[in-house]
């Protein structure tokens, strides 16, 4: 038994990785996806190479343990989105 949500797309409530056309990748819980883009809740972002960590390193940790959130809510315009993947589908090692 759980709560019910209005129809916000099949990714609603799912933690996703949003790769952008730049160096930035976002990870967060999808609230809504539309033609305009995607809205993530409790999200984090990483810029490739920041803190001495590649995007691959960052995603490897995220896939195993999740993320420490930096944003309560972030909207990513469709034009910036390269790929959306479920975090749970990434390899954990």
């Amino acid at each position, binding site marked *: 038994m759980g709560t019910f949500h209005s129809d916000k797309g099949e990714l609603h409530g799912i933690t996703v990785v949003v790769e952008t056309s730049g160096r930035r990748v976002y990870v967060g819980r999808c609230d809504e996806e539309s033609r305009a883009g995607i809205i993530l809740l409790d999200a984090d972002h990483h810029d490739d190479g920041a803190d001495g960590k590649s995007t691959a390193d960052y995603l490897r940790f995220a896939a195993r*343990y999740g993320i420490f959130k930096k944003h309560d809510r972030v909207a990513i315009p469709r034009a910036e989105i390269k790929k959306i993947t479920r975090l*749970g589908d990434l390899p954990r090692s």
Partner: protein
Amino acid sequence: MPYDPELVAPMRREMVDLGAKELTTAKSVEEFFKAKKGTALLFVNSVCGCAAGSARPGLKLALSGDHKPDRIATVFAGQDTDATAAARAHFKQFPPSSPSAVLFKDGEPVFFLPRHMIEGRDAPSVAFELVGAFDEFCAKK
């Protein structure tokens, strides 16, 4: 803001029916973590149907296997906030996640099942993950 207690009551009951000790205060959390020996599972309960709706039945399935933790407890994220914060202080190397499950052995966290490994999956898939950890860490040798 916490949900209506009447709404979450069945979700709490599901965990208690599994044999989990419900920890609703920071004090009760510290009491639970005083004992270090053996294995203990802490389940961070959640209202969200996207994940918790399969997490609790998944845990139930996993607990019907050959190996299981010596002790099970639960806190309810978004409801019992002090208890949840106190519990998370015992595994702060892992990002906050609800629902989630943490397995401890001799007081140390040895396995973490975060929300993103639960959401969108059915109960047997969740159980598969937990049974693997129970077999590895809870088998009596």
